[in-house]
C-alpha cells in the first residue's frame, strides 16, 4: 500500500481503544434500532439485496 493510500476517507486510520470495550454487547441507540427493525419488517429491503453486487 502506498503512503498516499493511508488515512484517506476510504481507508481511514482508526485507533483501537480498549476503553470502548465497555460498549461491546450493548445497544446505545435502542429506539433507533427498534424503528429500523420495524421499518425493515414492514417494508422489506431493496430487490437487489437478494443478489450480490
Amino acid at each position, binding site marked *: 500500500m502506498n503512503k498516499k493510500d493511508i488515512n484517506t476517507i476510504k481507508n481511514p486510520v482508526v485507533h483501537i481503544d480498549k476503553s*470502548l470495550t465497555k460498549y461491546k454487547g450493548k445497544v*446505545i441507540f435502542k429506539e*433507533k434500532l427498534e424503528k429500523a427493525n420495524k421499518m425493515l419488517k414492514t417494508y422489506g429491503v431493496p430487490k437487489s439485496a437478494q443478489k450480490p453486487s
Partner: protein
Amino acid sequence: MRYERYELNAEADLMFYEFKSDGPKGEVTKLIEYTETELKGFYNLGFGDKDPCTGKINDAVITNNGDSKKVLSTVASSVYKFTNNYPNAWIYAIGGTKARTRLYRIGIANNLKEIIQDFDIYGFKNGEWREFEKNVDYGAFLVRRKSVNSYHE
C-alpha cells in the same frame, strides 16, 4: 469526499467509534454505533453526542460546533472502515430528527459522484426503497459496499 476528518477511535470489533468534535462550543465527544438488526446482515447506524456529565448519548441534540461537514466526513469514514471489514453488510441510517436526516441526504447528494463508485445507495420514500437521486426527500437510507477492492482515491 475531501473534507477534513476527525481521528477515530474504535472498539476492536469496529462496531463502536468515538471521536471529538472541536469548535466554538468546545470539545464534544461523539459516538457512532453499528448494531445488527433483526434482519441478518443489516446494521443500524447510530450517531450522537456524549453528555460529559451523565455519559448518556443523545442523537437529537444540535451541537452547533461549526464543523458539520467535518463531522459528516468522519462518520462517512467510519462507514468505509466498517464495510472494509464487513464487506457484505447493509447499513441502515436515519437521523435522530428530520433535520438530521435531511443533513444526511444533503451530504450524500453533495458527494454522490464519489460515493456511488463504492456504494449502492437507496432512499426510502412513499413506502418503498429506491435508488438514491438528488433533490428527493427521503426518510431513511440503505447503503451497501460494492467492492472492497476498489478503494482508490
